[in-house]
């Protein structure tokens, strides 16, 4: 039968520190990104060659989306691009042959199980929780930095002041639940994809018609995982941008204006900052 672990399996320990196979996957994804970035920046040209334009593609696309959010987008566009590329590479690395299949075979309680050497990084709740904590700290920090701590708390209280005992816990919980939802969404999607692919690959032992089921069906689901990995990376990055945008916005009866109103908003924002800075 298929055996999938919900937690990353420990490969070896260095002292008290346990190295799990999803840590190996995360480190591999980071090294791949760093190597790509170093190679591109050492050979960058004004007229880009093919590899450079390939890697400029996601950067330009994400920048195009972030540009339309607030007037201070340059401060956080690097975080959004970094999150997008990291999760994208980590997810797609999990589709390579060998990831999740090459491992150490040992018997536990009479059952022979395989511990893979490399596992997709986002299939471990620790990885997604770490990224979600980064996003949470960043957007709370932005909210406090732009509106001041008193302004941020006033944001949570809401507009009709008499509704505060009801609205304050609701807003507080909805802000905290962003942490949970970000991490759970990415983890659930990638882990479910892992289980799906493992199930599809195990179909061959259960049937006579080996070739179609051994080759075509898993490849359909690999394609699905390709799509979902990319979509989840984009969703995480865009949600980060949206939360930062919402933390910066002043709720004076509207949300953050889209492009075209950046200049007016910048003036209104500086006026609000001087008028509303805490005593």
């Amino acid at each position, binding site marked *: 039968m298929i055996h999938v672990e*919900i937690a990353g399996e420990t490969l070896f320990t260095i002292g008290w520190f346990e190295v799990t196979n999803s840590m190996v996957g995360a480190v591999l994804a980071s090294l791949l990104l760093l190597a790509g970035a170093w190679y591109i920046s050492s050979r960058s040209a004004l007229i880009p060659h093919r590899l450079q334009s390939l890697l400029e593609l996601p950067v330009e696309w994400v920048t195009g989306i972030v540009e339309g959010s607030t007037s201070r987008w340059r401060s956080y566009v690097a975080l959004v691009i970094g999150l997008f590329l990291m999760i994208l590479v980590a997810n797609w690395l999990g589709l390579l042959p060998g990831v999740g299949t090459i491992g150490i075979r040992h018997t536990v309680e009479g059952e022979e199980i395989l511990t893979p050497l490399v596992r997709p990084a986002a299939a471990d709740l620790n990885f997604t929780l770490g990224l979600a904590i980064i996003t949470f700290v960043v957007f709370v920090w932005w909210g406090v930095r732009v509106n001041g701590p008193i302004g941020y708390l006033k944001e949570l209280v809401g507009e009709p002041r008499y509704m505060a005992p009801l609205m304050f816990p609701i807003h507080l919980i909805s802000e905290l639940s962003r942490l949970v939802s970000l991490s759970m969404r990415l983890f659930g999607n990638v882990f479910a994809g892992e289980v799906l692919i493992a199930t599809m690959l195990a179909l061959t032992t259960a049937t006579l018609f080996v070739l179609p089921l051994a080759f075509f069906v898993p490849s359909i689901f690999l394609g699905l995982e390709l799509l979902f990995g990319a979509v989840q990376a984009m969703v995480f990055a865009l949600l980060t941008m949206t939360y930062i945008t919402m933390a910066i916005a002043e709720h004076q009866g509207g949300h953050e204006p889209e492009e075209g109103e950046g200049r007016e908003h910048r003036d209104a924002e500086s006026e609000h900052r001087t008028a509303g800075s805490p005593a």
Partner: protein
Amino acid sequence: MEGNIASIAAGLAMIGAIGPGIGLGIGFSKAMEALGRNPDAAGAIFVPYILGLALTEAIGIYCLVVALILIFAGG
């Protein structure tokens, strides 16, 4: 994992994925409607649409997480 109430509960927990399924279908149909009315608005629709999809789908993921907890750490 043998048959115990945790596995039945895990199966029942996934019934909750009906909600996001309906929600995603409604959201997608509205997006298609808006696109049909105004095909040039594809760029403006895209980002809020993906965001709405992700937030709706998260509820289904919560059901999945409950089911996974029941399978792997239940009984």
